[in-house]
């Protein structure tokens, strides 16, 4: 252990560089964005299920919708309260949540997820 000093100094520098992103960005983390509701969505008060469920499970709901509509041909969704909805992203979801940029994209960008729904499905802003 003749080079004890050099090794320790080297290790300290190494760990500083390794943890650089963490302490450099400390406190600068942007807060989680809140999705913005349209007037129509506010008036409806509830989505097809409660907000907490929709927030965590909407992707599973959409996945089940897509498989059931496309493969089984059943196009009407009846929620737990017995209310009927046409199972359609463009026609039902985007009818209330017609603000894709503020409602969908804000959180998706924050969480760095890029769903490819919009390669095929239309959303209201696109209407000409």
């Amino acid at each position, binding site marked *: 252990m003749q080079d004890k000093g050099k090794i320790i100094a080297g290790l300290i520098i190494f760990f500083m560089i390794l943890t650089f992103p963490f302490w450099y960005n400390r406190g600068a983390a942007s807060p989680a964005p809140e999705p913005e509701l349209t007037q129509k969505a506010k008036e409806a008060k509830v989505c*097809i*299920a409660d907000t907490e469920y929709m927030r965590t499970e909407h992707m599973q709901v959409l996945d089940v919708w*897509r498989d*059931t509509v*496309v*493969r*089984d*041909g*059943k*196009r*009407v*969704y*009846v*929620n*737990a*309260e*017995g209310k*009927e909805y*046409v*199972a359609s992203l*463009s*026609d039902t979801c985007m009818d209330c949540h017609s603000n894709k940029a503020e409602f969908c994209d804000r959180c998706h960008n924050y969480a760095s997820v890029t769903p*490819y729904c919009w*390669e*095929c*499905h*239309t959303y*209201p802003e*696109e*209407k*000409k």
Partner: protein
Amino acid sequence: MENSRRSFLKIAGLSVLGVSAGSMLIGVTPRLLRASDGDAQPKFTSRPEAMTATRWGMVIDTRKIDHDLNMKLQEACHEIHNVPDHVGISNAPRHEIKWIWPTEFKHAFPNQEAQFLSSRLEHTELPVLCNHCENPPCVQACPTKATFKRDSDGIVLMDFHRCIGCRFCMAACPYGARSFNFRDPRPAIKTIRDTFPTRSKGVVEKCNFCAERLAQGKLPACVEASEGALIFGDLNDPGSDVRKLLDEQFAIRRKPNLGTFPSVFYIV
């Protein structure tokens, strides 16, 4: 305490049992709780006005078909399904996408003896589309089950979400009814209808017998535009319009020798 092999095995066995029982409880409890918090579970149904059949089929009365009507059928179909016009808009005829299109008798029925064919058949073009075969070779070819025959009504459908663009189905289809999106379709769509999704680059598409319209209780767009030249109905129902017509008139199907059993019939 002296460690023996016996006591070690005892402890090991008990821990395995404990861990597996514990993880099972963790996994099962929320599901049990969820199941007990109300018996009303979400479910799926169809619209009450939806049209149903056990095997949808079409009869095309070629005596009523002319060029203008062919164009009208194609326009009606391609417009509501957001089918891109690569021939007109992108000037790329080799990337053409078609769901229903006119073709000559000799191309629609290459196995049919056509010497001294009646001049009416020789010169008119017939509309051709996906035949929604009873025994569809495209479905057998698809490696991802993206194309499938719907058990309930016999329509051969595409699940664009699952299509990987391998084009085996195009090679398998003896009628050339399938087209591949070699390029992004959106720039070539005149007006994008938001009642039907567009496709993305790299998927195969074809006629879907207007499954989305049947679910709303409407006839297929081409049938609606055909002024009575196209008749649509349940082939398994002896009282349906198509069966009555087939009972009265002699009709042929495309390439019957292949054993695909098309659901589209042509009165010649």
